[in-house]
């Protein structure tokens, strides 16, 4: 094997990081070879980001890191190697300046790192990210995924020897994700190594080696085959309701033998098996059956159009959301999903078209006012008050929706258990990982038992176990109370949980069909493949 000849370029020895009293990672050890792709996977808050920051030399740590014979123990000592390292931190375009255009970002980062302009390479990056046509758009006006992609290509700009990406594909559409891998692989040929943390298991599969983080430690490592192999005894086919096993994506995981057909495991399973081994149980989701009077058609949008100057973000989109239906709104980054939802909510004025919500024609502020308590919304850039603790945030939302004190208490406890954020209740949003934050936003949107939910990428950046709980909750809500849900996501396998999907492309609706019909139409393809197929067919 040629692997034998490759040099070791990074060695991490006894790495520990703590924030005040809280220990984020303890005694992590691993090494990385030239051209190797190392994947970090693990639950939210497991310590992946802290490890990545320490290696990139932006965070103080204990222990020792050796990069190509150069030893460093602190950010200060790491200065010398920053020429060869590039880090992209987590969060939707955190490192971007809202007032600079895409092109100006390239100028800035090129100058910052003292690079020569390589027109061809830069264009290639821009095209990969689908930003080539939008070079003059201000970063503040890009869609969430577009921002993410811009930070991503900016971190590729210096052609680093060691690339460190922290959940780079969160909120990025499947088309761009595929293209990203092409670029990474190409740069690897030139000798680049990379450490990438990811929540997409299909991406984790492409890594040379994976490390599973859990509560600040690496609890398993190996190739994805090895990791998958380790859980094959616990994986069964289908999904069942049982409080001793987890089910997600057509698989059930159980430590005790079940009377079910064994199935070929997937990487995702490792999180569930790990959770089971630690004695965690799936949360029993209790949604009492309720009969709320809900009209047959919840949302009826007729030819809704939104323009930003010359640019048409949404072009005459018709959409119906029926009672007790989960509708997935899919589309590439910048296709107009968020814009569409914001029009439904009245956060953007509607330029053209008619909108009926819960059977009522919406024309004015007054029309919306009475409907607000029936709507729940989670925005893409999750938003909670950062000066209020999680609990205070939830209490505030509850009060605004006229929940009684007792009810508020009960609900908060219930959601905290269901989404596993009990230990964070008194923390402030800034102090907790992204994925955990996303969960509070969800809880805040659900507290007042809305009739219709608008969820804009609620599961981006949320770990697998929490996503499974979340989807079970949505299904239960729908089945037992008959509410409707409009949801956007870039996890194409989540589309399987929807009843129907509408696909947008460049502001135009290209498909609107039931999921089962699509499967019939494109047999033997998983949903990601179906999505790519649909996009290809509608050039």
């Amino acid at each position, binding site marked *: 094997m040629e692997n034998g000849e490759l040099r070791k370029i990074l060695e991490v020895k006894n790495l520990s990081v703590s924030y005040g009293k809280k220990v984020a990672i303890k005694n992590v050890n691993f090494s990385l070879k030239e051209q190797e792709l190392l994947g970090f996977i693990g639950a939210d808050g497991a310590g992946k980001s802290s490890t990545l920051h320490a290696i990139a030399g932006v965070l103080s740590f204990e222990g020792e890191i050796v990069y190509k014979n150069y030893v460093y123990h602190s950010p200060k000592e790491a200065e010398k190697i920053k020429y060869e390292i590039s880090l992209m931190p987590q969060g939707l375009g955190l490192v971007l300046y809202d007032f600079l255009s895409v092109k100006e970002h390239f100028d800035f980062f090129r100058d910052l790192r003292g690079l020569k302009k390589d027109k061809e390479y830069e264009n290639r990056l821009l095209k990969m990210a689908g930003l080539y046509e939008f070079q003059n758009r201000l970063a503040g006006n890009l869609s969430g995924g577009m921002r993410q992609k811009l930070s991503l290509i900016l971190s590729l700009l210096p052609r680093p020897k060691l690339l460190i990406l922290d959940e780079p594909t969160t909120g990025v559409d499947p088309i761009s994700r595929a293209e990203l891998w092409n670029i990474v692989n190409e740069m690897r040929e030139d000798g680049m190594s990379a450490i990438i943390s990811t929540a997409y298991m299909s991406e984790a599969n492409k890594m040379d080696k994976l490390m599973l983080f859990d509560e600040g430690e690496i609890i398993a490592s190996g190739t994805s085959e090895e990791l998958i192999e380790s859980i094959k005894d616990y994986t069964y086919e289908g999904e069942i309701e049982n409080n001793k096993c987890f089910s997600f994506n057509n698989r059930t995981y159980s430590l005790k033998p079940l009377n079910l057909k064994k199935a070929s495991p997937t990487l995702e399973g490792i999180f569930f098996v790990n959770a089971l081994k630690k004695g965690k149980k799936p949360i029993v989701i209790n949604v009492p059956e309720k009969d709320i009077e809900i009209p047959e058609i919840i949302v009826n949008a007729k030819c809704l159009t939104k323009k930003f100057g010359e640019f048409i973000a949404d072009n005459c989109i018709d959409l119906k959301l029926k009672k007790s239906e989960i509708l997935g709104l899919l589309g590439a980054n910048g296709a107009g999903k968020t814009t569409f939802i*914001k029009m439904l*909510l*009245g*956060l953007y004025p509607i330029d053209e078209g008619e909108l009926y919500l819960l059977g009522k024609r919406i024309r004015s*502020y007054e029309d919306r*006012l009475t409907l*607000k*308590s029936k*709507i729940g*919304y989670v*925005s893409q*850039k999750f*938003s*909670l*008050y*950062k*000066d*209020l603790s999680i609990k*205070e945030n939830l209490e*505030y939302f509850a*009060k*605004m*929706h*006229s929940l009684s004190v007792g009810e508020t208490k009960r609900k908060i406890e219930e959601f905290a258990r269901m989404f596993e954020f009990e230990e964070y209740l008194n923390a402030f949003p800034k102090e907790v990982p992204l994925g955990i934050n996303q969960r509070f936003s969800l809880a805040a949107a659900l507290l007042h038992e809305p009739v219709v939910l608008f969820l804009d990428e609620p599961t981006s950046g949320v770990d697998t176990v929490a996503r499974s709980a979340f989807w079970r909750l949505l299904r239960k809500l729908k089945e037992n109370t008959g509410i409707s849900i409009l949801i956007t996501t870039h996890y194409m396998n989540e589309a399987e949980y929807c009843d129907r999907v509408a696909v947008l492309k460049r502001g135009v609706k290209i498909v609107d069909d039931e999921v089962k019909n699509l499967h019939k139409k494109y047999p033997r393809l998983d949903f990601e493949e179906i999505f790519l197929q649909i996009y290809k067919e509608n050039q």
Partner: protein
Amino acid sequence: MKMSAILKKEFLVFFRNAGLVIFILYAFTLDIYIAGKGIKVTPRNVSIGYVNEADNLIVNKIISSFHKPQFKQPKMFLNEKALKNAIYNRKIIVGIVFDKQFVNNLISKKQAKLQVLIDSTAAAQAEVTLIYLQNILMKFENNLNLPAKINIIKLFNPNSNTKWFMSLSELMSNITMLGLVLIAVVFVREKENGTWDIMLLMPVRGSLIIFSKILSQVLILMAGITISVGLIVFGVFNTPINGNLLDFYLISFLFSFAIGGIALVIAAVSKTILEVGHLTIVIMLPLIFLSGAWTPLSAMNPFIQYLSYLSPLRYYIQATQDIFFRGSGFFDLLPYFFAELFMAMVLFYIGYKKIGKLF
């Protein structure tokens, strides 16, 4: 119920911003104290020097009558050149040259002309200093017999205690600034942190949100005023109040809402807190200067005097000075109350319309 939820939230957010709380406390206490204590406008401690060319004892007698608090211990210089030099290097402000002729004339009871060199960089100070000198010299000749007694009474503040005036002026300037900043920030913070959309989707009327938010900050302001008046104005400086404190609270309350209206306009046009800060400066400075906080309105250009009728601060300052110093009663103050109420309604309406568009 919903209003109390908003109030509670705003209070929590306020108190969690330690920096802001400290600043507000500072502005209502220490800052007022420093302004009252530190900014002395009437000249004290004037540094003075002299040359005794005549070398006569009578000069020493005159010199000994320059003393604290108006004058520092006079410094002697050898000749006029050294004296001038000291003025040029701003070591002293006043230089007196006692020449032979002066002494001779003084002794022979002719009118003696005294040469006084004065650094008039600070014009007003120089003028008052000259008045001091004049008075001292006049009293020096104790046989001076005035035909009539001049009985001067400075009403309201007989000892010209600058602390009273300065602390109140500073307090009103600070209330104006804080009113603008605090109220604009409660809105713009939501924009900057991306919680604006969430706020819009709350099942309450925009008007309730706007009103509750403003009320929360007005209450904080009133608390600050109470601390300031209690601790510094009354506590440290012993400022007398000749009118009724309740009147002061009433006018302060009305004024907060007038200022709130302007703050709403700032909030509507600003995207970031930084913009709020700068717009506040741009609006606050003319407001304070055109309203008679530091210079009496009657001394200003007539055009500015007319313009100042549009400033809510004008009525606030006048009412406050009347309440504290001139001791006006409720009925004397009625015009101010009505004017302030009117300003509050107009400005609030404009601000409300402006920010209401965003809801």
